[in-house]
C-alpha cells in the first residue's frame, strides 16, 4: 500500500473536516486525491502539521480536524504528541502515514521502523491509538476512526511509492491558502 493507495481509501470518506497536510509529498498527494477549501497545505515548517492541527482544534472547537502527517514530521516534533495528548481536543484526529523514509528528499531512511510511533502516541496519552498495515485493514477501520472522539492517532504503514512526486504542486499561493482556509472555517477575513 502506497501513500496514494491509502489516500484513495481515506479521502473519499471525509466531509467538512479541516485538514492539515504536512509538507513535501504529503501535501501534493493529498491535493491530488481530494482538495477542499478547508485543507491547509504546509509547504515549509516541517514538523508542525500536528501543532497547526492542535491550534485549529482549539481555535475552532466545533470543527473536526484531521492532521495528515508523515513519520519524518512526527519524529521531528514528538513533543507535540505529548501536548496534544494533554490538551485532549476531542475534535482532533491524527493520521501518520509511515513509510519509514523521508520520501520527499529521496527516500532516506527514518528510524520509525525501529521506534513505533503508534506506541509513542499511546505512551503520550492519546485517547485512542490504532495501527493498520494493509488496504483491507484500513478500509475496515477508516469509518470508525473518522468517527472517534479525539485525540485519536492512526498509524498507516505504507511502502515507498514510485520515484517522483505523488501529485501536482499546490497551485495556490501561501497567502491564498491562508485566506481560503480561514473563510472555510468561518474566521473573519
Amino acid at each position: 500500500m502506497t501513500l496514494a493507495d491509502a489516500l484513495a481509501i481515506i479521502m473519499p470518506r471525509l466531509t467538512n473536516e479541516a485538514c492539515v497536510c504536512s509538507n513535501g509529498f504529503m501535501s501534493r498527494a493529498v491535493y491530488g486525491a481530494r482538495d477542499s477549501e478547508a485543507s491547509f497545505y504546509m509547504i515549509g515548517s516541517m514538523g508542525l502539521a500536528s501543532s497547526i492541527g492542535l491550534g485549529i482544534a482549539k481555535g475552532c472547537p466545533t470543527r473536526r480536524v484531521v492532521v495528515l502527517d508523515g513519520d519524518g514530521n512526527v519524529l521531528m516534533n514528538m513533543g507535540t504528541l505529548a501536548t496534544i495528548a494533554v490538551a485532549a481536543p476531542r475534535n482532533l484526529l491524527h493520521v501518520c502515514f509511515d513509510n519509514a523514509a523521508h520520501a520527499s528528499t529521496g527516500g532516506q531512511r527514518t528510524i520509525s521502523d525501529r521506534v513505533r510511533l503508534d506506541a509513542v502516541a499511546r505512551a503520550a496519552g492519546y485517547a485512542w491509538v490504532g495501527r493498520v498495515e494493509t488496504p483491507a485493514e484500513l478500509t475496515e477501520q477508516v469509518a470508525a476512526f473518522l468517527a472517534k472522539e479525539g485525540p485519536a492517532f492512526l498509524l498507516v504503514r505504507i511502502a515507498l511509492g514510485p520515484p517522483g512526486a505523488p501529485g501536482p504542486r499546490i497551485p495556490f499561493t501561501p497567502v491564498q491558502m491562508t485566506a481560503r482556509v480561514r473563510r472555510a472555517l468561518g474566521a473573519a477575513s
Partner: protein
Amino acid sequence: MAFPADRFVDSLLTAGIDFATGVPCSLVGPVIAELERRGLYHGETREDAALGVAAGAYLGGKLPMVVMQNSGLGVSLNALASLHLLYEMPCLVLVTWRGMAGKDAPEHLVMGEVMPRLLDLFGVPWRAPEPDALASDVAWAGERLRATRKPVALVVKPGLFTTHS
C-alpha cells in the same frame, strides 16, 4: 516598578489578542500565570511548535500570541520564515531579552546581543517598552498585526513584569 500582569492581559484583550501559547521564561512568569488564570494559555514544548499552534489558532479565527525566551527565538526561525511570514499569519511574539547589555548568564549572551538585529533581519517590527509605554505599545502591536498580517514582537526587558533580575 513592574507592570501589573493583569493590566497587561487586559490590554492584550483590548487589542483583540485572544489566544496564547508558548514556552516559559522567568521574566514573564506573572504574565503566564495571569493568562492561565483566565484560561487563555496553551503551553507547548518548543517555541516553533507554539508558533504552529498559533498559526492554527489564527486559521480558526483567533488572534494569537506566542510567549518565549529569546533562546527560543533561535528555535523559531524556520516557523517564522516558512509559516507566518510566508502565509501572512499575524502573531504577537512576546519575547524576553535575556542577555541584554551583556549582563546575564553566559548561555544568554550571544542571543542577547544579536536579537535586535535578528528581528530586523527577519522583518519583524518590534518595540522594547518601558512600563509606562507598555499599554500603548500593545495597541500599536495590535494595529500592526491587523494591518500587515505578519508577526510583531514585544521585547520584555528585565524588570518589566518582575522585580527580580
